[in-house]
């Protein structure tokens, strides 16, 4: 990570991401919060590009911005308007304290740690990733597909109505 351009990009990304994160927390309207969340995801993708993790950046955009954010939007749109209020709750102060403490601890640990810095930025292509997934990581990779199947079966079971179930019972 050298050069003025990279530093500039880093600070711009940091600004955008922080504003987006605060926006998620501060918006009263749940819909706005989701839009800020999308901006946050895009900012994270930018970090991945800066770290030369191009594939990860693409995946971040496609999965988080493309799929998850849209899913969240749909969920919000299907929620009754009364349930969309993102206003104050009794837990505001305890949550703030808890998060503040956690933030302090993490900041302390980050500065206290002697991080190992890579000499050169690694270059990993999508082909490398594919090969790794199907050689060393083949077991977790296959398990992930079992996991998805199970999740599909389970979610179908949970959303089926009583009538559909009755029809099915032979």
């Amino acid at each position, binding site marked *: 990570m050298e050069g003025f351009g990279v530093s500039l990009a880093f600070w711009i990304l940091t600004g955008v991401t922080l504003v987006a994160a605060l926006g998620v927390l501060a918006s009263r309207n749940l819909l706005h919060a989701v839009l800020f969340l999308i901006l946050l995801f895009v900012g994270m993708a930018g970090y991945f590009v800066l770290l030369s993790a191009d594939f990860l950046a693409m995946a971040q955009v496609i999965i988080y911005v493309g799929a998850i954010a849209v899913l969240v939007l749909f969920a919000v749109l299907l929620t009754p308007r009364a349930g969309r209020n993102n206003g104050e709750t009794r837990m505001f102060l305890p949550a703030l304290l808890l998060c503040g403490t956690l933030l302090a601890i993490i900041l302390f640990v980050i500065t*206290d740690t002697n991080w190992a810095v890579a000499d050169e930025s690694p270059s990993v292509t999508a082909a490398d990733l594919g090969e790794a997934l199907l050689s060393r990581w083949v*077991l977790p990779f296959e398990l992930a597909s079992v*996991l998805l199947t*199970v999740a599909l079966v389970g979610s179908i*079971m949970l959303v089926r109505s009583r009538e559909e179930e009755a029809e099915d019972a032979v």
Partner: protein
Amino acid sequence: MNGIDLVGPQFAVLIAAGLALVVDAVLPRQRRLIPFVALAGLALSVAWSISWVARDDYQTAFGGTLVLDRYAVFFYFVFAGIAAAVVLASIEWVERAGRGQAEYYALVLASTAGFMFLASSRDLISIFIALELSSIPQYILAGWGKDERSSEAGLKYLLLGAIASAVLLYGMALLYGFTRTTELGGIADAVAAGGDANRSLLILAVALVIAGFGFKMAVVPFQMWVPDVYQGAPTPVAAYLSVGSKGAAFAVVTRLFFEGLGPGVASDDWSMIFAVVAAVSMTFGNVMAIAQTDIKRLLGYSSIAQAGNIMVGLAAISVAGEEFVLGASGVIFFVAAYAFTNLGAFIAVIAISQRIGSDRIADYAGMWKRSPALAGVLALCLVSLTGIPPTAGFWAKLYVFNSAIRADMAWLVIIGVLNSLVSAYYYLGIAKTMFVAQPAEEATFRPPLTLSISLGVAAAGVLALGLIPGPVLSAAHDAAETLALVY
């Protein structure tokens, strides 16, 4: 083929899960067969595990992401046994619920395979995937009842479980960032080489990992979901959660700490974390259990206390040298003993509540006169949970407390023994209600055949481990030694 052979026990379980769905689709009139397909798969899995014991040719596989050692195989037996008991105990309930019979068993089996992978994973990534594979079916199963209570249980479990997974991942990411490897052996090397310089990072990472798994173990302060989920979830599922999920979490944490983070820099630090969590869990679980009037909630709180007991074995991790494996083998034996005992208790509760339609302890009055077998087995399991000989629970407690004494943690053992006294009050209180109080009605009853079988096996296990603990104790010791082999 070699690859499949190495994951044979899990593979058999997953095949049975798929087959259950296929039978449902192809032979819709033969749905009664499905639980037996599941049982056949589990039997095949056990046979495969036995063949590995016979071959005695343990090895790592898949680039070190999985290891097939005595430790893993020991837990294969435990988890296959748990799943078989749960399948037997579910048959009546699932038929009455009248929906998705195949899916129910497929989810139970998939989750069992996840447990088995957890016990044999030696890499943070496969550990995480295996954890999710075991958890997601449980979230769904907890909500299976679809009434208000069950849906609440499912949703609560899902949301808190997702947070726990996120916390766990954060801890794993920190570990990876520091050691630059996800493999447990590599982590051990990096931790040993790193020295004291990065102690604070290591402690933060480990605390987050403990928090993530602590949710599955149901130790304080990650226990808030337990009573509601146990009460709301279908009782066979609650039984499954209480032994399977807890056992798997302890299996993986024991491997993680004894292999990846064992005699490293900060092992005194996490010995202390474990000891404090154990003491608080035991005390909290027992004190809260006293006031319960619902037997499922009581068993929920008691399972928190039992998790505290098991964790005493993890606190003994700081013992060095020859006795290093004592804590680990205590954990292993305790998990096996606890599996038999708690399953027995839950299955008796299933059989009783099917008949009397209530989970209130007061309604158990005079159960001895109505169904001597059920009351007898439930009482036996409660005695074992208290830790009184001649039951499995006695040796389990003796073993973990002994390891804590060797680790110079006498204070923890004193807390544990005091807690056992407190627990005797409410465990034996239930027994007293069943044996002394007058029943509301006199009609006697017998549990259905499938429940009787699983109940008989559980009771036999509790007594066998109590009377002749030798073979299992030495198997647990051998299993723990394979963990220490890394050094």
